[in-house]
């Protein structure tokens, strides 16, 4: 009875699914789907290597400091780092005094109240403060940016497919829409050209991004460590810095992972040996005709024990 009902219900679902499939096939044959312009012109992030790649990767402190400098001088005008505090900069190799100075001299002040009057005010940042948002609120941010909202950058590397290479590719990926040709040599259709306040960037999912090119020329930043500040260098440095802001515990995670693996490998080898020992010691011989737990052999063994005068 269950089987007959089952077959009927099954035929029902199969029939309706097949009906959907039929219409899908008809639609597919009549009008095969064509790739969207976004698909045709979108570029995947360039492949590039970072010091934190791979299971043993770690941050390059010099690169993080350079990246922080790019953030400070270029990105911070529009983008906040809501989840990162000035005190976290210790991890980048800055001394306590340097962190104090960075917080004290940060161009954007922290919202506060006037201790005398209680009115809203701002004060200088302290190491315990998070990086202040450059805009008072979303409306102010949109008003200042042609109705686009500059996202907070704390987690941007983890919040975008492609991670740090994507960010670096995007920062240097701006192109002239009119002269751009994709891999097939096609020009961008006119209706997909950037509108007012938008910029063509093939690394961006919908090709047109509201952020103006942030890194415009070599030498835009003068690195303290003397590294030549090429556009590529600046883009990679700031991407590495943003990887740190998104995943500040990456190094301890990698280290702890190695030790955990070593421990587990050791424990698993021991467990394997215990397993082998137990199964080969008793059961495996027991299941052979000549095994120790075979009733005949057990009887023989008991007999032998009795003869030898061994107890148990």
């Amino acid at each position, binding site marked *: 009875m*269950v*089987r007959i009902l*089952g*077959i009927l*219900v*099954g*035929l029902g*679902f*199969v029939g*309706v*699914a*097949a*009906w*959907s*499939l039929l*219409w*899908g*096939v008809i639609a*597919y044959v009549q009008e095969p*789907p064509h790739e969207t312009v976004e698909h045709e012109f979108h570029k995947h992030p360039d492949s590039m290597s970072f010091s934190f790649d791979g*299971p043993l990767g770690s941050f390059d402190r010099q690169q993080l400091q350079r990246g922080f400098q790019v953030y400070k001088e270029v990105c911070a005008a529009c983008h906040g780092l809501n*989840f990162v505090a000035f005190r*976290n900069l210790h991890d980048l190799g800055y001394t306590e005094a340097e962190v104090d100075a960075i917080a004290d001299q940060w161009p954007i002040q922290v919202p506060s109240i006037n201790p005398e009057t209680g009115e809203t005010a701002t004060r200088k940042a302290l190491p315990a403060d998070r990086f202040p948002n450059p805009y008072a609120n979303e409306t102010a941010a949109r008003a200042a940016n042609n109705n686009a909202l500059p*996202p907070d950058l704390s987690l941007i590397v*983890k*919040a*975008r*497919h492609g991670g740090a290479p994507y960010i670096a590719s995007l920062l240097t990926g701006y192109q002239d829409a009119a002269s751009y040709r994709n891999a097939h040599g096609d020009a961008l259709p006119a209706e997909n050209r950037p509108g007012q306040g938008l910029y063509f960037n093939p690394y961006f*999912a919908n090709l047109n991004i509201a952020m103006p090119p942030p890194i415009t020329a070599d030498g835009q930043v003068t690195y303290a460590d003397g590294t030549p500040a090429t556009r590529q260098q600046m883009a990679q440095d700031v991407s590495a810095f943003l990887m740190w802001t*998104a995943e*500040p*515990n990456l190094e301890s*995670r*990698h280290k702890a*992972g*190695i030790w*955990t*693996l070593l421990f*587990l*490998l050791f*424990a*698993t080898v021991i*467990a*394997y040996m*215990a*397993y*082998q*020992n*137990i*199964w*080969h010691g*008793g*059961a*495996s*011989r*027991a*299941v*052979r*005709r*000549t095994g120790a737990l075979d009733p005949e052999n057990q009887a023989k063994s008991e007999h032998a024990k009795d003869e030898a005068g061994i107890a148990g």
Partner: protein
Amino acid sequence: MSFPWAEEYRPKHPFMRWMDDRLPLPRLVHGAVGGGYPVPRNLNFFWNFGVLAGLALMIQIVTGIVLAMHYIPSGDAAFASTEHIMRDVNQGWFLRYLHANGASFFFVVTYLHIFRGLYYGSYKAPREMVWMLGLVIFLLMMATAFMGYVLPWGQMSFWGAKVITGLFGAIPVVGEPIQTWLLGGFAPDQATLTRFFSLHYLLPFVIAGVIILHIWALHIPGSSNPTGVDVKTPQDTVPFHPYYTAKDGFGAGVALIALTILVFFFPNFLGHADNYIPANPLSTPAEIVPEWYFWPFYAILRAFTVDFILPAKLWGVLAMFGSILLLFFLPWLDKSPVRSGNYRPKFRIFFWILVADVIVLGYCGGLPAAEPFVMISQIATIYYFAHFLIILPILSMVEKTLPLPNSISESVLHGEKAEAAPIDLGDATPAKA
């Protein structure tokens, strides 16, 4: 518990005897997972996954309880408190990554456990209740995992909650009131977050309770085995402890190594980038994708694209829930007296097609709903329902099965099949005296 030759619990130490007279908890443990539970001696490594699922639940409960000490279930603070855990709580990143990937680990071992049951006919008499209680656990796991994914209050959390509760909106007449009731409002909001947090904390303990019933029901007939032949004599079994505790210990080590690699080196591999963007009710993500363990069911949901008497969306919802609910009837749909797929040559072929089918469904479910993947998932959906509701009932009537071994120990002694034998016994030869 299950067999007359099960070793009785005999406490040696006076304290244990004293305890046994008052609270026989050691006796219970001895009978459940100790030397007092005789287990078929020929279990292969696919029998490790039940214990591993229990281990996964323990990991989830322990990490979850600590995470709940730092998490704030508030629309304004949930995302920030998750980042607080990641950055400022001591080893908080480890707790959160272990909890997030632990959910995937739980589903991996549970899916392997389920497919082991499907192949070896573990759902058949007299273990129907074991199977059905297992399905209840599976449904509870899905509900728990779904609500847990909502808690970080990222973009995918918010929109996932909206889409999944929206499924109930497809039910005629009462659908929308049900959806509003589930969410505590017209869209996911504070009320949703707090109730999901409350239930996400509750359900794992419900799961633990059903697991106790699952194990209780299992211990009545005893564990199944790769031959599917019933245990007949003491030679067919070995005590759970030390034989299977040792084997499970090794299995747990291997599984934890895999989990460690995921947690420490690829912690975001199974996640979605959009969930690192705080929830924004005004901005729909380009693609709303559930976690990977829901993909096969998500593909079935989206496979119904054309209205047929009922709206297509309702068909999708019915099929998605039906795809799991039909498993409750499996013991009566597949009436073949032979349990193990090893002795059912035709069943075996269809079983592997089903495995491939579910993988295809999962692959399509993780992709955007675009052709040709909708058509592929429609074909796969047709096979899924046909497999359980049409092929298995007919197959169990017409299939000619292979001869079964007379007993478990005979199959082992004669080295029948490598997979039916304990390790290193496939080519057992008599030892020279």
